[in-house]
């Protein structure tokens, strides 16, 4: 639709709010003329039986009410005005909605400096088939589980829970995919520290054994006479359930509770956990053990740290230590590019535990010593 037609349509919409029926009639003619030139399909869509009947019904109701209070003549006049106004608004809506395309909207967001919004809209559009497949799978699983029995409203919450959780997982995967492709438009780094030591970033899905791996690596390094400083954050398991995290100094074995799961109340930093100052203090003391020739172990850094909170002040202090033998950092996949940028390190190797065919302990130790170039991130 060109600018003149767009202007004509806009003028018709504005004129349709006039009180004089002649003006509104003129607006209706103008709107229909624009639609005839720009998109005849839109006009046909508006003139469908359902829409016309609805408009006539609304106009008749308005006419009846006004006729009852101000006389028949005035009622007919108002009814005609309402009918014409509805036609103008429906024609304008039909033309606009049919002339807008997704690509156009995405280009517009870019033109107005809203790249992040444009990327999000593009992601939403692309994820629709995935969401539909997910909904179908959830429904099929539900039918199989209940052996095709009658559907009851009582089962809706369970279905909604599964669908919402799956949507959340897709969002996590999308963030990971965008991050690993180096999308920097969606976010901004808030911390940075230059690190000269060889750095190994250990990542992988939740529960894949990142913390046990780091503990094994520390044991191997100790066996080889290589000192390590820093902390690990093993989960606290109670009654088969993860109830929190503790922080343990890898050099001294000292430990303290860091986070406890909150059952019904509010967590902190958008998590289901409340944090304890003793845990942060212990982690800080553990990181203060960083010295020349020592391997620094940080398990793990999360979004809180990469915003400059949590362990970050102590981590920054430790990373500035000259002559570190190496750095091992555990981080979730979505934060890998952020971490790499925040570290501003010369030599970074990322080890993803999922799909790691070799002995991961050997891979991490090998990476600390220059390692396999094929796993190099930068």
């Amino acid at each position, binding site marked *: 639709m060109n600018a003149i037609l767009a202007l004509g349509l806009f003028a018709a919409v504005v004129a349709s*709010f006039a*009180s004089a029926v002649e003006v509104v009639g003129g607006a209706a003619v103008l709107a229909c003329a624009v639609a005839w030139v720009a998109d005849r399909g839109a006009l046909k*869509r508006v003139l469908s039986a359902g829409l016309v009947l609805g408009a006539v019904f*609304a106009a008749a109701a*308005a006419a009846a*009410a*006004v006729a009852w*209070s*101000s006389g028949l003549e005035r009622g007919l006049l*108002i009814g005609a005005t*309402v009918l014409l*106004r509805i036609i103008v*608004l*429906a024609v304008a*809506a039909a033309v606009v909605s049919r002339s807008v395309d997704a690509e156009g909207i995405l280009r517009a967001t870019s033109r107005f400096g809203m790249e992040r*919004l444009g*990327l*999000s*809209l593009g*992601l*939403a559009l692309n*994820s*629709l088939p995935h*969401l539909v497949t997910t909904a179908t799978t959830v429904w099929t699983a539900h039918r199989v589980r209940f052996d095709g029995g009658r559907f009851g409203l009582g089962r809706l*919450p369970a279905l*909604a*829970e599964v669908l*919402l*959780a799956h*949507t*959340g997982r897709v*969002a*996590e995967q*999308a*963030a990971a995919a*965008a*991050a690993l492709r180096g999308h*920097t438009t*969606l*976010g*901004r780094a808030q*911390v940075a520290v230059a690190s000269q030591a060889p750095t190994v970033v250990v990542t992988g899905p939740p529960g894949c054994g990142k913390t046990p791996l780091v503990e094994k690596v520390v044991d191997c390094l100790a066996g080889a006479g290589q000192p390590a400083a820093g902390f690990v954050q093993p989960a606290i398991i109670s009654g088969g359930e*993860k109830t929190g*995290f503790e922080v343990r100094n890898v050099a001294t074995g000292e430990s303290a509770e*860091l*986070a406890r799961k909150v059952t*019904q109340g*509010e967590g902190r*930093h*958008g998590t*289901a*956990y409340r*944090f304890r100052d003793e845990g942060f203090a212990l982690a800080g003391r553990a990181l203060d053990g960083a010295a020349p020739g020592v391997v620094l172990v940080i398990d793990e850094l*999360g*979004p*809180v740290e*990469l915003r400059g909170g949590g362990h970050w002040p102590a981590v920054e202090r430790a990373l500035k230590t000259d002559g570190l033998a190496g750095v091992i950092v555990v981080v979730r996949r*979505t*934060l890998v*590019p952020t971490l790499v940028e925040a570290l501003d390190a010369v030599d970074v190797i990322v080890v993803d535990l999922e799909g790691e065919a070799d002995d991961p302990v050997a891979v991490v130790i090998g990476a600390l010593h220059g390692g396999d170039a094929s796993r190099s991130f930068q």
Partner: protein
Amino acid sequence: MKDLRPWTHAALYGALWGALEATAGTALHLGRVPFRGEIMGLMGLVCLVCLRRIQPRVGVVLIAGLTAVFLKIFTLGGVFPGPLIAIALQAVAVEFGFLVARGRLAAGLGGAVALGTNPLQRVIMAWVVAGPEAATAVIRAVGELGGVDPRLVLAGFVAVAACIGAMGGLWAWRLAGRVVRRLGDRP
């Protein structure tokens, strides 16, 4: 921070809401199902509250709302501006709830405002389309023929819708808690 998750979560939950609007919303609209606005409002509320509980950042709900509007434009019902305005207003209402309160109270407040403004929005739309004279005449006719003050009727509708919205918001908050536990977030 280069954490992409608020954006991707907003996009995905907005897409889920948009997909529901495009499928269930259009079906309810074409089927002339009573209270379709309230039903779709509750569905949207669940998506938004869940999103806000998973990603407690200011503005994510608005992005999800924009996403749902974006997807709704390309559906069969995209010709009608009413649902588009309703979706946008609902996102603003839920965001408002989370700006002035926290936790389940915010969810309840957001739900109450979101659904409570539904009848008002319809009245305002009718007022705009029919014009002040026709709208005043209808109000007078309802008042005199029905024997009830139309403002009281409207207030009643708003109150009932707000109560349903508040209950829906609280329920959505609880459901979102279960979703968060299912996702197994780690600090």
